[in-house]
């Protein structure tokens, strides 16, 4: 039962990544693209944790934590760059 639910969740998040990619390509404003990239990072965190459940190891939490931190910093840096024209003033 868990295997079937895992397959369903993998399919959902894979499809979600495709939607995000469409918004990155299509997105009329830069705010849309930043938002889609941030959503992509969050979906990748979910995929990493699902893969950790599939493999039955706790190694992937560290990877998920690192991806979460790098994703947050990069989103803030991108927004700062658009807002102020510079990242560190």
């Amino acid at each position, binding site marked *: *039962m*868990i295997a*079937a*639910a*895992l397959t*369903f*969740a993998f*399919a*959902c*998040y894979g*499809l*979600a*990544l495709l*939607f*995000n990619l*469409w*918004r990155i390509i299509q997105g*009329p*404003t*830069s*705010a*849309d693209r*930043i*938002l*889609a990239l*941030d*959503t992509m990072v*969050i*979906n990748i*965190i*979910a995929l990493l*944790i*699902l893969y*950790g*459940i599939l493999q*039955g190891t*706790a190694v992937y*939490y*560290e990877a*998920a*934590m690192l991806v*979460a*931190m790098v994703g*947050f910093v990069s*989103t*803030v840096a991108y*927004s*700062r760059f*658009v*807002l102020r024209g510079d990242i560190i003033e």
Partner: protein
Amino acid sequence: MDMTFLAEALIALFLVISGIFGLVGSFGLVKLRETMQRLHAPTKATTLGVGGVLIASMLYFLLVKGSLSFHELLITLFLFLTAPIIAGFIGKTYMLRHITRDDLPASGREYGWALYDAAPGEAPEDTDKA
């Protein structure tokens, strides 16, 4: 035997619910019309979806593997803390390019809007030069 079935059903339920939430969040990103509307879908639904995945992972390692882990709570806390900050930054990014000062009402305070006016400590002439 019955308890194992119950635990597996609970984990599978959380996995399915979180998958649907994640899909709805990203589908909203595609479907909604305005940028400010699009801001709502990923910041709420996708964050909830990841929270569901993390709860399922915690339950799986607790009930099936028999070991309690708190890493997931750390990731959940981090995501729930950063989601509103990111939403605020992206909203300001959109406002700077697409909403002018005249579209907004007066702030009703001594100081104006943070995005368009100088910070309270600074003199307006300094910020104009910089």
